């Protein structure tokens, strides 16, 4: 089977679910109950060990699901904004989310200005969605991102054209997570290409520098890089010059991500047949022409799925900025619980943050699977 070449996002989901739906739909094509029985016997009770497995799994579900549904839906308190009501109901306290969602989503951003990060986020997400569409994979994308970053920066900071200035120490929640992750990938990308090219360079000194950088950064935990950005970096700067914490963390994340991305790009470079390099040389192209016009356009296409995977881990890793005291989505979810009456409802807060992370990461991993299938379409069979 080979994937169709052009698909809309809606068809992606349909495509991903196809095998599962086929198995589910099979019985209905037969004769109702008998066919369903046949399906059940084939997939759940084909042998004695299989039957035992099914029963164990069912027992697990019966033991686990009803209390969970009871807690999360039946006994849950959805509104009211009063922790006492929650305690009386005894179920999940989604009222916590109702009361605190502004804080969890936007952190310390001035309350009456929340529309600004909201609009900025919408623009950001549209740009990300546009980047997902292969039709935009060319130089136009760089232009789109330049505009998006400029408008996003204006919305978040303000200070001119009628918007009040908001210092970035007050940024927080989901916009901060999105900014850290997206800028982390977007700005690490050019750096990673240079590092990957350097690692495959014929010049020994440049190769040594790039190998050293990549291996050192990949060998240490992100926490130590963030510590470095937060406590060591101020020492590196000349007297009187200070850079704020957010920027330092962002630089740390960019430098960290670049090393991992460089390895992904290197994989793509290695996958290009030698003939392509030789043909480019034979055409009389210089190094940068050869790379820019012949090798990279092919290599980068190959490594888009690993780049998306790297984006997923970068998105999750931004949560570590909690350690240096930035108010990202996870930190706000944790901080919302410091309000004493709401303290017992930590599960609700973490589940809410977890669902947001899950939504983004799950979508991206599905997207990466779709890309892999699409990119393989030409080479398979």
């Amino acid at each position, binding site marked *: 089977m080979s994937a169709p070449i052009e698909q809309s996002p809606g068809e992606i989901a349909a495509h991903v679910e196809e095998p599962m739906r086929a198995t589910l739909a099979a019985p209905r094509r037969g004769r109702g109950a008998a066919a369903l029985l046949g399906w059940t016997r084939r997939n759940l009770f084909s042998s004695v060990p299989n039957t035992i*497995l099914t029963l164990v*799994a069912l027992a697990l579900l019966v033991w686990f699901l009803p209390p969970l549904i009871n807690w999360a839906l039946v006994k849950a308190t959805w509104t009211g904004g009063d922790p006492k009501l929650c305690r009386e109901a005894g179920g999940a306290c989604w009222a916590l989310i109702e009361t605190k969602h502004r804080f969890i989503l936007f952190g310390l951003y001035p309350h009456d200005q929340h529309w600004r990060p909201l609009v900025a986020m919408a623009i950001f997400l549209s740009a990300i969605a546009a980047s997902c569409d292969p039709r935009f994979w060319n130089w136009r994308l760089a232009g789109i991102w330049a505009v998006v970053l400029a408008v996003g920066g204006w919305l978040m900071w303000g200070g001119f054209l009628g918007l009040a200035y908001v210092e970035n120490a007050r940024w927080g929640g989901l916009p901060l997570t999105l900014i850290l992750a997206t800028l982390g990938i977007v700005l690490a990308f050019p750096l990673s290409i240079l590092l990957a090219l350097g690692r495959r360079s*014929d010049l020994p*000194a440049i190769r040594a520098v790039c190998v050293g950088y990549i291996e050192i950064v990949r060998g240490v935990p992100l926490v130590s890089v963030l510590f*470095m950005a937060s*406590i060591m970096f101020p020492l590196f700067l000349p007297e009187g010059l200070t850079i704020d914490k957010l920027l330092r963390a962002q630089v740390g994340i960019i430098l960290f991500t670049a090393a991992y991305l460089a390895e992904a790009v290197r994989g793509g470079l290695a996958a290009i047949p030698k003939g392509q390099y030789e043909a480019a040389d034979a055409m009389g192209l210089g190094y940068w022409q050869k790379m820019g016009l012949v090798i990279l356009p092919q290599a980068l296409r190959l490594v888009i799925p690993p780049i998306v995977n790297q984006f997923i881990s970068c998105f999750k890793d931004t949560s570590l900025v909690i350690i240096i005291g930035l108010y990202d989505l996870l930190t706000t979810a944790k901080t919302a619980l410091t309000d004493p009456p709401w*303290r017992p409802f*930590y*599960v609700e807060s973490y589940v809410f943050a977890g669902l947001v992370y899950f939504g983004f990461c*799950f979508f991206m991993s599905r997207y990466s699977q779709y890309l892999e299938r699409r990119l393989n379409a030409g080479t398979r069979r």
Partner: protein
Amino acid sequence: MVTKGAWWNDAGVRAVLYQIVVLGAILLLGWYLVSNTLANLAARNIATGFGFLGREAGFAIGESPLAYAPTDSYARAILVGLANTVIVALVGIAFATLIGLVIGIARLSSNWLVARLATVYVESARNVPVLLHLLFWYALITEALPGPRQALNPIANVFISNRGIKFPLPVWEAAHGWMAAALVVAVAATLVLARWARTRQAETGQPFPIIRVGLALILGLPLLAWLAGGAPTALDRPELKGFNFTGGHTVSPEFVALLLGLTLYTAAFIAEIVRSGILAVSRGQTEAALALGLSRGQVLRLVILPQALRVIIPPLTSQYLNLTKNSSLAVAIGYPDLVSVANTTINQTGQAIEGVALVMAVYLAVSLGIAAFMNWYDKKTALVSR
């Protein structure tokens, strides 16, 4: 002959020039940063160097596998942190591998329900930040579990409360030392025996039941040593005295939360690696091996596993490395690992550069060591293509 162009068009000269420019720029940047740092340190009256390691640490560490008191040196405290990191990483790797193996096989199960459940687990565990796992489990343990007086008691002498898990340990006696010695002897004997069995099979074709004999040795010898030592059964049991337990061994809530979070997160990734490894071995291999007359066990051991492992091992080691590096998140929930202790040290002494450099050097040494092992393994198992 072609006339020689100007020297600046010569590729070799250009190559040297480029490298000199890049190296020069890096050295200049480095010099700039170092001179700034030295000026800043001088302005803040911070002495550079690792001399602070010998000074008295003065802070307590919650749990320590080594003897440690606040009067010990910073070096000792950091060593304790390192030991804690190693412990949580090793235990985490063992559990994550086990769970990942089971889930990975379950995802390929022909049983629809089991495969779906495994998929739900993998997707929900790996699409959430590992730090969220840690915070969630830590909150659950410290808030939802009862206090020591109402501790859960699932098995006799095992108590689970918000102060951690308490369980009994055998009281140390000489027999236990003999058991350890017997175990070492048994493992060594099994290795020698396996070597001999392999050579004999290669020469004469006679197989030897090395797995059964090896297992018997490894289990039997320590048991014999235990019996010979008088079969001591005394246990150091945890008992409730006042508001807390005395005796027995304690696993702290921080350790449990860290272990749960790291294990459940990493297991989801390992499950995917195991799945892809098994899928990478084509069905024809199994059928061919069965047609050759090998038993099911032999097919798995001699044909499937060696091929699947070649696909599994490289990403698996990188997951092990990830787990080890992620254990540094312990600092967020207060488990005294290397990063956490180093952080306290930095806060107390102001030796930020030395502290961070120490942490980075340790993780780097582990990573480079494992990378060297991986290169060796890759070379050893590379397919020889002719």
